[in-house]
């Protein structure tokens, strides 16, 4: 955080320094930059030009004045020296006096030297005037030249002097000449030296100038280069940097980070652009945050709605799952969309495996008449076309061919105006159907069972009426009618017993009983008369030791008499029924063995079920309700006893009843059974 502030400050600092330039328009900035660079170049050029001109001037001065001066001085000196040497020759010749002719030649030389000297002097004077120099040097030179000329004239004019004088004169002239010559040379040399020094000085100055010019030009060039670079950098910085930062921030904004602003320090076009950009960014941010807020709100709304929906869905699911009815939803093409748990367990299919598959590939439908029922067919198609719910009883045939009877309601699923599928609710009626079947069987059985004694009673009574005048006949028929009626009553008792056994718990009231005695009496009183009528034999061997135990006498009587009754009923005339009584560990076994029609292994499984009569038994004897063995089973269940069968078809059967030595008492109000009559 601190670092960021510092950075900001630094930027700020920089911005203050650069603000005057920074604020300029880019066009102006570019103009200024280029203008400055051009200005620098022009300056460098101008300075170079100026310096060159100065140097040139210096050279001109030197060549115009100093050099001719020196030349004139040189001429003068050589003229002077010639005069001196010519005079010396002349004097020497004259002194010797040898050759006058030669003296004349020497005179010419002197004149010539005089002319040269004069010319040089004149030239020097002109230069002095031209250069505006003071005349001091000239005066000096002029006077020495003049003295030199005067000596020369004196020497030449003394030609006529005698020898004695001559020596003195020559010596004087020589002395004077030497002095003039010395003076002359001194002044000319001094001037020459002076001039040379002057020229040297000038030359040195020029060289210095040139050097300075070179150095300053180099310096200026380098400075210009640096300034140019600096300016270029500065302007590129001023122009490009904000653009770069703009670009960086644009990419940040593109990613949704609105926290950064474009920092601009100048109010140039980029500054304006940055301002517009920042404005746009803040607008965008506002819009975005507004949008975000809206999205958040909407999301929250959606979440709430979703939660609600989920709760509703869960409720609905729980509701659907907890319903005992199977529910299945199909689309318009008869494919399974969903089904509930009940449907899964009823149909033995799992939603995961069948979802999206055609219903008919898993379950075949048949109507009550047993004809195939297809979704495409009437009446189910009515659900689609007429949009009406229908109810029907149908048979569902599963893949394993097992059948389920279903009370089915089929209703269309309507979305707006379109039927998008159908919902079928079905209740398994198989049990009900079975119960109904049992009922139907029972009714047909009972009606048959009742019809026989009723027919008997009707015919007997009709006959009794016809024979009413014959007393014996009438009495016999009436007694027959009573027996038939009793048979019917016994049947009705069985039926009532079953309904009592089914609806309530049986009361068990055990009493100490001598079982041998109990069975003997049962045979004697109830079974023997019936056996006698069919010429059948009942054999019972009483055990040596008395077997005394607590039993509910009524119930056990019911059991034994029912079994004996069956044994007599399903055996032919003259056959023997053997009854056994044994005491075993903790229990007593009573067996009833016959030589009757027997029961197949398959029939044995269902033998003790309600209303079950084997086909053989049903066609063997009219009497027999299909209830006796069921009643026996129920009674023994209440007495903690059991019953079992051992039999082969056509080879007789042995029923074994096993009862505990101690029958527990069970006192319950109500369920009292009607006694069984052997018939």
């Amino acid at each position, binding site marked *: 955080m601190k670092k960021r502030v510092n950075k900001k400050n630094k930027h700020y600092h920089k911005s203050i320094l650069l603000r005057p330039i920074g604020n300029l328009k880019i066009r102006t900035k570019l103009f200024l930059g280029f203008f400055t660079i051009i200005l620098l170049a022009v300056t460098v050029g101008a300075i170079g030009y100026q310096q060159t001109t100065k140097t040139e001037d210096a050279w001109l001065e030197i060549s115009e004045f100093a050099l001719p001066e020196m030349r004139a001085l040189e001429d003068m000196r050589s003229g002077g020296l010639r005069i001196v040497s010519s005079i010396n020759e002349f004097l020497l010749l004259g002194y010797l006096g040898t050759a006058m002719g030669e003296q004349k030649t020497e005179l010419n030389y002197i004149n010539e030297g005089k002319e040269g000297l004069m010319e040089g002097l004149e030239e020097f004077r002109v230069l002095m005037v031209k250069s505006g120099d003071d005349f001091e040097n000239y005066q000096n030179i002029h006077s020495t030249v003049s003295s030199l000329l005067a000596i020369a004239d004196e020497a030449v004019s003394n030609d006529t002097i005698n020898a004695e004088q001559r020596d003195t004169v020559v010596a004087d002239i020589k002395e004077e000449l030497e002095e003039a010559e010395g003076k002359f040379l001194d002044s000319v040399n001094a001037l020459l030296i002076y001039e040379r020094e002057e020229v040297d000085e000038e030359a040195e100055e020029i060289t210095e100038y040139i050097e300075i010019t070179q150095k300053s030009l180099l310096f200026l060039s380098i400075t210009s280069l640096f300034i140019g670079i600096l300016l270029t950098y500065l302007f590129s910085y001023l122009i490009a940097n904000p653009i770069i930062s703009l670009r960086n921030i644009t990419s940040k904004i593109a990613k949704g980070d609105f926290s950064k602003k474009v920092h601009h320090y100048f109010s140039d076009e980029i500054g304006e652009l940055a301002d517009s950009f920042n404005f746009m960014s803040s607008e965008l941010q506002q819009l975005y945050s507004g949008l975000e807020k809206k999205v958040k709100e909407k999301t929250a709304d959606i979440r709430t709605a979703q939660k609600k929906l989920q709760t509703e869905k869960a409720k609905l699911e729980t509701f659907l799952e907890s319903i005992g009815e199977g529910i299945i939803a199909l689309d318009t093409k008869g494919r399974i969309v969903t089904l509930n748990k009940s449907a899964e367990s009823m149909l033995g299919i799992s939603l995961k495996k069948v979802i999206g598959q055609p219903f008919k590939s898993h379950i075949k439908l048949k109507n009550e008449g047993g004809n195939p029922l297809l979704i495409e067919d009437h009446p189910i198609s009515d659900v689609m076309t007429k949009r009406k719910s229908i109810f029907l009883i149908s048979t569902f045939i599963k893949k394993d061919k097992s059948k389920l009877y279903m009370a089915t309601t089929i209703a269309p699923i309507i979305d707006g105006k379109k039927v998008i599928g159908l919902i079928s609710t079905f209740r398994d009626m198989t049990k009900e159907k079975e119960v109904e079947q049992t009922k139907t069987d029972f009714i*047909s059985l009972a*009606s*048959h069972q009742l*019809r*026989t004694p*009723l*027919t*008997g009673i*009707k*015919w*007997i009574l*009709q*006959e009794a009426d*016809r*024979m009413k005048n014959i007393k014996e*006949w009438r009495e016999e*028929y009436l007694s*027959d009618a009573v*027996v*038939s009626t009793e048979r019917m009553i016994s049947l009705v008792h069985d039926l009532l017993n079953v309904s009592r056994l089914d609806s309530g718990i049986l009361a068990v009231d055990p009493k100490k009983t001598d079982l041998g005695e109990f069975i003997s009496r049962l045979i004697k009183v109830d079974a023997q008369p019936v056996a006698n*009528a069919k010429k059948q034999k009942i054999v019972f061997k009483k055990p040596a030791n008395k077997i005394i135990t607590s039993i509910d006498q009524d119930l056990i009587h019911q059991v034994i008499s029912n079994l004996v009754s069956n044994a007599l009923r*399903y055996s*032919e*005339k003259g056959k023997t029924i053997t009854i056994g009584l044994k005491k075993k560990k903790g229990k007593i076994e009573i067996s009833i063995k016959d030589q009757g029609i027997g029961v197949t292994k398959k029939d044995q499984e269902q033998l003790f079920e309600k209303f079950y009569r084997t086909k053989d038994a*049903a*066609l*063997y*004897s*009219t009497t027999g309700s299909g209830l006796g063995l069921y009643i026996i089973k129920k009674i023994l269940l209440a007495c903690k006893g059991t019953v079992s069968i051992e039999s082969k078809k056509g080879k007789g059967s042995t029923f074994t009843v096993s009862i505990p030595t101690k029958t527990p008492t069970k006192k319950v109000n109500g369920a009292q059974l009607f006694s069984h009559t052997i018939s």
Partner: protein
Amino acid sequence: MKLKRILIAEDDPYLSKVMRNYLEERFIVDLAEDGGETLEMIHKNNYAVVLLDLIMPVKNGFQVLEILQEEKNPTPVLIFSNLAEKEEMDRAISLGAKNYYIKSDMDIDEVAKAITKFTEGQAK
């Protein structure tokens, strides 16, 4: 006029007793108490008609019919039963029974009339 001989195959002693008493006035009546006895009697005697109950010991009525059909025995059989299901009626007729009567629907004199009518029809 010579009385026709008929056989009553009925295991219920009370019914057979009434039927015999009533029909004896018009026919010579034999009684059989079970299917086995019935077949024996048919083999032994020549009956104008057999009144056959379906539910009987030893051999039931259907078994008797089957055997007679196998033997190509021409003895006409009328079923007198209290089985009232169509299935059983059809089965009996298909096994050669000439007619099927539900006992409880009939009075005893109607039984006699039916037999008389049948035998007279047979005679012609």
